[in-house]
């Protein structure tokens, strides 16, 4: 198999989905962000965002923390070290295959 095609086949499927790629891209450049920020920037619906975040959390790429600002509930998300490594690897694999 051609190396470039093999690179494509090896892409991380957990990150490759457009919604999750948007979330991981955003979280890769911030220390932490809340649910509302991610929803506004990605344009995903609450349900979609929630589902993608759960998958990323299960995969160990995202850390989710439920907290409060005053009386307002907040969901704070951040990319884990494994998430940063996976995103870096995903970007270089994608660049190599194009």
């Amino acid at each position: 198999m051609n190396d470039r095609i093999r690179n494509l086949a090896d892409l991380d499927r957990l990150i490759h989905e457009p919604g999750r790629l948007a979330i991981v891209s955003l979280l890769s450049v911030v220390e932490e962000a809340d649910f509302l920020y991610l929803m506004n920037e990605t344009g995903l619906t609450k349900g979609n965002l929630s589902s993608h975040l759960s998958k990323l959390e299960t995969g160990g790429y995202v850390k989710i923390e439920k907290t409060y600002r005053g009386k307002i509930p907040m969901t704070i998300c951040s990319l884990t070290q494994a998430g940063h490594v996976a995103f870096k690897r995903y970007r270089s694999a994608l660049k190599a295959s194009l």
Partner: protein
Amino acid sequence: MNQSVDQFTRAPQHYELLDGTSEMVLGLGCLLFSASMWLGTEFTVTWQWLAAMLGGCGLLWFISTFGTRYIRGKLVYTRSGYMKTRRQPWKPVLLAASACAIAVIASIVLSQTPQSKIPLLVSLAISAAFLAASLIKGVRRFAVYAVLSSAWGVLVYLMKLSMSAGMTRYYLLLGITLILAGVWTLRSYVRHTPQHNPEAE
């Protein structure tokens, strides 16, 4: 959601400048600088003068840190969400090195320039910085500030003032412009972005 990965990774930079608080802080800095130039020409430099300047710097730091945090906590994070940019350890070093390099270049250039032209030259340099920020950060209103900065520089030059009087007036005009622009930006952000209704996330 047709944005590229690069657009997503640049989004936080843009978000930081969304509410106009950065302009307000810059504007206050300009007013403080203008006041220090004015006090320096009108009165002899005494320890009270130095203490007042130090107090002004402290007040500027307090407003830029806690004032910005308060405005964002009350108005921005409740509307379009909260995010905290990642601290890059090399950034303060790079900023300090750039500031030193600019100060050295500026002192060489300004020493060879007629005193009356210094405010004009400073205004053009600040315009260039605003223009660069507009292009790098993708914030169009910074290009307007670049035009206004040049306009104030030309105006002060045409008034044929001494260097310190010219600088005082230039920074005063720029400071007022930036504060008004910041307030207008914040007002328009608040008007156009409805408060988020928190439900189950």
